[in-house]
């Protein structure tokens, strides 16, 4: 039985689980639904084009040439921030490899002790003390890890994201630890750009109306009407959003924590991550270190076994323990097991002869329901 060696170079992003789309050979990472992102792009580019076409020639001559120059710089900054937010890895945590998942399962078993048959096992929670505050770390059934503090699982992208803020359809990506500051700068600069365009639209219409009359001005520059409409509606939403995020940053909170009311102050629960100083909080969020991506999208997969198996996304050293074909360690099925993994659950013994993995595969599926998004968590928090 001879096997054919695959010689095509496969990059790790091609084998990553989760519902992201990748472009430019793994350099760009976005969510699957990008429709609203294209709308955002269209609105920004469209409105600014109209501004440069209709307003700028008049204002440059009658007021100052600095006006279009500044508008252009602001526009470029907005676009840079938008693309940076949309295209970068928000801080996705890679899923546990089978051995790590098994190790954690064994620890949980040891901690839970004997659960009488028919009884629901206790929810998988680890308590840690952070700055004299007890924080509960929840177990993610999809990623098979205990989520670090402030991390949350995004059900749209099907990934655990570190310091998860929210999933923003307008930028077509999650907002998390790595791209939060770009997101904030995007909303801030977009607010400034919107106010700038709105103001100069009004100035332009007023100046022209003085010479030509109001209705004639509108006929001459129809673009202005469109711009004013777009800016008016954008102003309320984007400026409000910027204000909200400024508030969150000053308290070092995430949108996710704010929605769930994690640090709302009842039961004397306080935010353990806040430095209790607005300046320090702002500096940490906006000027902190630039965290690297832990996903290694562009690394090459090691094709060390021929043809059939999907090599797991790990370029790390040797392990002669054969890995199962799915990296989501399909030993314990649950309602969130991806459909393609379910058939492989039925046949793990052929693929993973390591004795350690067998007992885990024979376990009864956990009855405790996993929490994968904010809504279920809120409900659970209220019942706890």
């Amino acid at each position, binding site marked *: 039985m001879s096997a054919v060696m695959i010689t095509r170079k496969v990059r790790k992003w091609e084998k990553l689980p989760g519902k992201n789309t990748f472009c430019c050979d793994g350099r760009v990472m976005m969510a699957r639904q990008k429709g609203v992102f294209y709308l955002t792009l269209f609105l920004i580019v469209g409105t600014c084009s109209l501004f440069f076409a209709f307003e700028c020639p008049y204002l440059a001559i009658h007021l100052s040439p600095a006006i279009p120059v500044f508008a252009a710089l602001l526009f470029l900054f907005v676009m840079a921030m938008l693309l940076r937010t949309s295209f970068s890895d928000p801080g996705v945590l890679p899923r546990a490899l089978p051995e790590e998942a098994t190790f954690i399962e064994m620890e949980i078993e040891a901690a839970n002790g004997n659960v009488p048959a028919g009884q629901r096992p206790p929810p998988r929670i680890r308590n840690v003390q952070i700055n004299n505050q007890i924080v509960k770390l929840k177990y993610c059934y999809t990623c098979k890890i205990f989520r670090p503090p402030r991390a949350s699982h995004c059900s749209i992208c099907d990934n655990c994201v570190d310091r998860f803020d929210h999933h923003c359809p307008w930028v077509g990506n999650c907002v998390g630890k790595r791209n939060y500051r770009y997101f904030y700068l995007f909303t801030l600069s977009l607010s400034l750009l919107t106010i700038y365009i709105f103001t100069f639209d009004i100035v332009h219409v007023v100046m022209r109306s003085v010479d030509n009359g109001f209705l004639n001005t509108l006929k001459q520059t129809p673009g202005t009407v469109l711009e004013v409409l777009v800016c008016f509606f954008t102003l309320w939403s984007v400026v409000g959003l910027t204000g909200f995020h400024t508030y969150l940053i000053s308290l070092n909170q995430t949108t996710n924590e704010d929605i769930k009311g994690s640090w709302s102050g009842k039961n004397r629960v306080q935010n353990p991550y806040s430095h209790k100083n607005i300046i320090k909080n702002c500096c940490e969020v906006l000027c902190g270190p630039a965290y*690297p991506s832990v996903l290694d999208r562009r690394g090459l997969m090691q094709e060390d076994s021929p043809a059939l198996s999907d090599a797991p996304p790990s370029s790390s050293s040797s392990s002669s323990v054969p890995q199962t074909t799915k990296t989501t360690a399909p030993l314990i099925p649950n309602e969130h097991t991806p459909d393609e993994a379910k058939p492989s659950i039925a046949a793990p013994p052929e693929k993973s002869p390591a004795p350690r993995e067998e007992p885990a595969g024979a376990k009864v599926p956990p009855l405790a329901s996993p929490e994968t998004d904010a809504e279920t968590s809120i409900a659970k928090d209220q019942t706890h």
Partner: protein
Amino acid sequence: MFSQTHSLQDMRQQAAVAAKVFIQRDYTNGTVCQFQTKFPSELETRIDKQQFEETVRTLNNLYAEAEKLGSQSYIEGCLACLTAYTIFLCMETHYEKVLKKIAKYIQEQNDKIYAPRGLLLTDPIERGLRVIEIAIFEDRSLTR
């Protein structure tokens, strides 16, 4: 940065992995990357506690240096913001520089201390900075 090809490890591919230990993160100081220094019982026969704790402590110090909120990180942040973060296309961030240091340190520790004892440290960056994976190889030299 992510490849750990080393002739010693190629040799190790011949040996069988008896077990893997995962050193978990220590969150007592917040979300900063720190690992627990608790000595796992599986390593008792292979390496002494002091050596292990020294390794983990040095790694913790390196990660603390990477994530330090000091004047250097603020200057880097402000400068990057002024250039709309395009400066990161040509310049390496402070964190990335420290990660390289960490990779070198782990390689060195593996060569000098862990490999001779039949152990292998995996750089935490390959596990999403969640755990330090230590592979314990079957020790054929010992007669039991």
